[in-house]
């Protein structure tokens, strides 16, 4: 109980309070209380990540004490400033909305929470492979108190041409560009102060919070984008239904949380908060909102490469579309450029430039990585998806409705394009359509946009713009149908409801997981703790990835090197990558061969953890191995070196 209270308080300390106070202080006049509350999480993430990233370079080790002092001081300062300023918020977001609307919002929100909770009950236990990899780095930061260099020791065959029969050896270290610092700092900070281990529900709960806030960001964005239109609030309500209630688990939703797709989850939140703040900045000429948008963007760069890449295309498409379609384009351009002219924005750019070029550059920003992502796609997995597959990934009903929404918005755009009152709506329309169109193009025809990235990964980003447009389609359709007789109107509503529910509800059911493999995972962690407690510095551990549940989490219990314990990978990997070392397979599958013996010596293997039933019998030679540990699933053998 105390653990839970501490976790909630510390999570709020890092992920709610700094952002809430900062946004209150700087934007309360423009934003409603609900908007401030929703924006507080992305802004807190941005502030927390920035401070934690800068601290080690300023000579402050990331210890519980240092972090408490810095964030305590920040909180007190912001509180004092808010108190002195006597802030008042803009009118309620729901101002003018009926009790029925508010209750409907609650019903949908509650349905979303219940659905997601139900899903997570079977997946909250930490077993996901990717999350295990990420939590290794969060644990590393906790133990070392500094920013990690993302690198690992590599094992290569001595003769790559004959890799299948060649011994292997450690040949040095290599950088891991797939990990980015912003994905790990928040977990380290919460664990440091709350004392709750990273091997717990904590990482998934934080990701779950981020996901809820992302859905609420869609809601408040739609509300704000189209607040002058009578259908705007209706569209906002539909978005919760289409994103949080239906298709609640698939795509970039709950499955990404339980699967530990950390970068995408943070990335989606930061993309939406950037869009939200940039929209306010552009339509209300708010330099402060622009600053928040920029800051979100910079932290996005330090958090997730693919999201940054996608957002760059979205932003470019939006700017180009504005310049093409907005009648008063020069006026708008001048207003946009004027947003840069604020002392804090200029200072921010100077600080960012110094930090970026002289202190810490994200690991993925190097000529090799950039040239491999931008250009004409070559591999078959990067040359685009058929439309049917994209629709399947976005959900067919949502995609079709999104196209309907796009067409409907075009007709709205014609009306509002030249009216002064309709400028904000027009900008929002351009934003929604260009966002949806550019991601569709990136997935269907990547060669035209020089996108050389896995098309299926890009396609996961279609969900949010598709929800924007499909919600608008539903709202507009119902609004246009208001002149129909009541029974026809209700009938149409029912048809639309079933049109999305018929696909969305089965999708939810199909995405539900079986009961968790907690019993097996608990034994894996028990094994890892045992090895970690006894592993000498001059030995490496070896384990199997094929049969041991949650094996990637084992490295957290022996945090010496990202590659420790060495791992027998999925069998297919050795076949599909002919130059890959085969020692890790040979040492477990055939531990008595001459090749395995050389591998054991070259790689200084001590303990070997295997599934007892699958591989235990391979190590039955008592002259070569001692058997030091056994539980119901896993056995540990220790190689005899004398």
């Amino acid at each position, binding site marked *: 109980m105390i*653990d*839970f209270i501490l*976790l*909630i308080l510390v999570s709020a300390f890092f992920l709610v309070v700094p952002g809430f106070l900062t946004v209150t202080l700087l934007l309360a006049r423009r934003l*409603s*209380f*609900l908007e401030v*509350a929703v924006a507080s999480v992305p802004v807190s993430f941005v502030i927390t990540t920035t401070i934690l990233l800068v601290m080690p370079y300023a000579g402050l080790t990331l210890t519980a004490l240092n972090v408490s002092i810095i964030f305590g001081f920040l909180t007190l300062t912001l509180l004092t400033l808010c108190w002195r300023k006597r802030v008042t918020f803009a009118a*309620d*977001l*729901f*101002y*003018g*909305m*009926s*009790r*029925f609307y*508010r*209750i409907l919002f*609650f019903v949908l*929100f*509650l349905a979303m*929470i219940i659905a997601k*909770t139900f899903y*997570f*009950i079977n997946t*909250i*236990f*930490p077993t996901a492979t990717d999350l295990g990899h990420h939590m290794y780095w969060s644990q590393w930061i906790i133990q070392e108190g500094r920013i990690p260099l993302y690198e690992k020791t590599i094992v290569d065959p001595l003769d790559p041409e004959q890799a299948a029969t060649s011994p292997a050896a450690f040949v040095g270290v290599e950088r891991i560009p797939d990990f980015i610092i912003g994905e790990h700092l928040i977990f380290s900070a919460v664990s440091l102060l709350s004392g709750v281990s990273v091997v*717990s*529900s904590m990482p*998934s*709960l934080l990701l*779950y*919070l981020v996901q809820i806030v992302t859905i*609420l960001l869609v809601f408040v964005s739609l509300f704000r984008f189209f607040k002058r239109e*009578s259908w705007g*609030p*209706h569209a906002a309500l539909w978005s919760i239904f289409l994103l949080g209630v239906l298709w609640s688990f698939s795509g970039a939703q709950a499955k990404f949380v339980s699967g530990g797709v950390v970068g995408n989850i943070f990335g989606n939140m930061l993309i939406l908060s950037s869009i939200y703040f940039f929209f306010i900045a552009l339509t209300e000429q708010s330099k402060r909102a622009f600053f928040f948008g920029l800051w979100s963007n910079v932290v996005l760069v330090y958090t997730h490469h693919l999201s940054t890449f996608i957002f760059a295309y979205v932003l470019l498409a939006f700017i180009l579309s504005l310049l093409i379609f907005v009648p008063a384009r020069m006026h708008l351009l001048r207003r946009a450029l004027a947003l840069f002219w604020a002392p804090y924005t200029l200072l921010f750019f100077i600080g960012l430039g110094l930090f970026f070029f002289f202190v810490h550059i994200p690991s993925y920003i190097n000529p090799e990585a950039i040239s491999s992502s931008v250009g004409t796609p070559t591999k078959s997995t990067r040359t685009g998806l058929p439309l049917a597959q994209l629709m399947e990934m976005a959900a067919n009903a949502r995609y079709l409705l999104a196209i309907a929404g796009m067409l409907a918005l075009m007709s709205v755009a014609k009306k509002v394009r030249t009216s002064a009152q309709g400028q904000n709506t027009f900008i929002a329309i351009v934003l929604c359509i260009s966002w949806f169109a550019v991601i569709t193009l990136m997935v269907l025809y990547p060669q035209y946009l020089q996108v050389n990235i896995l098309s299926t990964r890009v396609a996961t980003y279609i969900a949010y713009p598709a929800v924007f447009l499909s919600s608008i389609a539903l709202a507009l359709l119902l609004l246009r149908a*208001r002149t129909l007789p*009541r029974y026809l109107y209700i009938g149409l509503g029912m048809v639309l409801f079933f049109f999305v529910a018929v696909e969305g509800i089965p999708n939810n059911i199909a995405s539900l997981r079986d009961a*968790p493999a*907690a*019993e097996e995972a*608990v*034994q894996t962690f*028990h094994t890892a703790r*045992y090895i970690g407690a*006894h592993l*000498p510095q001059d030995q490496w551990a070896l384990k199997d990835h094929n049969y041991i549940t949650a094996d990637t989490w084992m490295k957290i219990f022996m945090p010496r090197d990202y590659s420790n314990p060495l791992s027998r990978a999925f069998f297919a990997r050795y076949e599909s990558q002919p130059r890959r070392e085969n020692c890790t397979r040979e040492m477990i599958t055939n531990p008595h061969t001459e090749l395995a013996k050389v591998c054991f010596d070259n790689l200084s293997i001590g303990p070997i953890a295997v599934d007892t039933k699958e591989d235990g019998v391979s190590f039955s030679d*008592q002259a070569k191995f*001692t*058997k*030091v*540990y*056994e*539980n*119901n699933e896993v056995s*540990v053998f*220790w190689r005899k070196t004398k």
Partner: protein
Amino acid sequence: MKITRFQYFGVKLSDMRKEVLTDKVIVCLITIFVIASFAVLFAVERVQSSPLAGKDWWSVSFVSPLEPTSEILIENYTTDHTTFRYEIQSEGGARIRKEGSVNVEKGSSEVLSDELLLDLGATVIFYPADNTNDLKTLWR
């Protein structure tokens, strides 16, 4: 402002003043829902991660795997066993040198200590007293 039947989401200004579900109330309710959901999931994970709750497994391990040791740790997270029998065998299991049993309460551990375990090649077989099929083996 007259409210038509299709503008049921709109509301009169005078009614707004009486509105209970203000932004602040909404944010409070959202927070409560989210914390309640977190509490459920936190509790579920705690139960799932407990070595004991709803699980049925046990383990044996050398207290010191790298040094000659006469001690073996038995940890019991089973649902129905508290007595574990053991046999210390000579190398290769040719003969049984010693038999015995150890009582380990559910959720706890016991150390079996015997000088015979120091012998190189000594093999120890453990099994619950009431289930001879559930064998676990260690050897030096």
